[in-house]
């Protein structure tokens, strides 16, 4: 494989993974020798050292991780603050209220109720610690979501059943008609 092609693939793989990856695993994905992988990583390092790059390679033992350029930490922090401390979007409010009154509930069921894909919203709510996920007992491949204890406390209660009108809202027939149709 050409060196440039290898660099491109390594960058893509490290970018998507987010986590540290063993060099041996990269070699396997590329079907190349580990020495070739190391050469490509070296070249990537040189590229990231150039002005204008916002990325960096973190090497720990046999593992490699793609991270943001530490010099930009201040701006990245600002982004994190913006993203996570903002008030909730309408979509996020809807999803979190569905989870509050109908949790534990699966992604498929939430999406059936809202009629749109909720992947991003669920991930953001998880990151903000407002919801929790656990294994779905009825479907081993999936998860179910419920409201986090921290968020309940923030709402001033220690039990979802004590949320306003829980007895009425949580058993509303209209939702059953949608979920059972899916």
């Amino acid at each position, binding site marked *: 494989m050409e060196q440039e092609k290898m660099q491109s693939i390594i960058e893509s793989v490290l970018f998507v993974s987010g*986590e540290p990856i063993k060099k041996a695993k990269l070699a396997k994905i590329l079907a190349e020798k580990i020495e070739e992988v190391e050469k490509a990583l070296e070249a990537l390092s040189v590229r990231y050292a150039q002005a204008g790059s916002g990325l960096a390679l973190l090497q720990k033992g046999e593992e490699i991780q793609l*991270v943001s350029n530490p010099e930009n930490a201040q701006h990245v922090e600002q982004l*994190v603050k913006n993203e996570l401390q903002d*008030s909730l979007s309408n979509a996020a409010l809807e999803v979190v209220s569905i989870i509050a009154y109908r949790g534990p509930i699966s992604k498929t069921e939430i999406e059936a109720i*809202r009629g749109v894909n909720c992947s991003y919203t669920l991930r953001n709510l998880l*990151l903000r*610690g407002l919801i929790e996920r656990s294994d779905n007992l009825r479907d081993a491949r999936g998860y179910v979501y419920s409201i986090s204890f921290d968020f309940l406390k923030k709402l001033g209660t220690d039990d979802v059943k004590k949320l306003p009108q829980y007895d009425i809202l949580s058993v509303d027939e*209209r*939702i059953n008609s949608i979920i059972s149709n899916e």
Partner: protein
Amino acid sequence: MAYHIKLEQFEGPLDLLLSLTEQEKLDITRVSLAKIADQYLEYIANAQDITLAHLADFLSVAARLILIKSKALLPLIQFTEEEEEEIKDLEHQLAQYKKFKEAAKNLAPLYDSPRMSFSRDGFSGLGVVFYPPANITGDDLAKVFAKILGEIPVVEKLEEEMVKEVLTLEERIVHLQNTLRERVQTSFSELVANTVDKVEIVVSFLAMLELVKQRLIHVEQGELFSEIHMKHKQ
């Protein structure tokens, strides 16, 4: 009236029309539409398994095709402004639909090809930190959830509305056929009364036969060469 359409074959009335024009190697013009109107009507009369959601759409196009066909058979029929507009719309719609059907065909290989981008999970590595929104209460959640419940469409109600729409359209088609009959009759008698041109009379006679075939009118003739009486088909 019972219309049945095989939707696994056609994506809708425009798809059916487009297939018919392509089959006959015709351009999308009013003249072509008049030529394939019979086939369209025949198709929707015989096809099976139409869903309620699509029936109204097929009938709406059928109504416009009946107009076009009638005009082609008897040029004397005058269209109302609204009818003229509907026909123009159909031609435009069909041309548009053709373009997007081709565009969809071009997108399919892009979509199916293994070539694709991936994004990464946002903020990975940060771990979960508790960032609650400020000023949120249980009442806010209750209110949002109640609103979601209120927006869930009741399925039976939707079907009722569709049935109503289909019925209205069927009525419209019947009404259209009735008024066309009247207009044809007037046109025909006027034509016969005012013309001495044999060719024109023959053309009108053929047109009348076509309308019989269309089951728009019913004709009666007591004996050979006697007066032809036209009646509204019951």
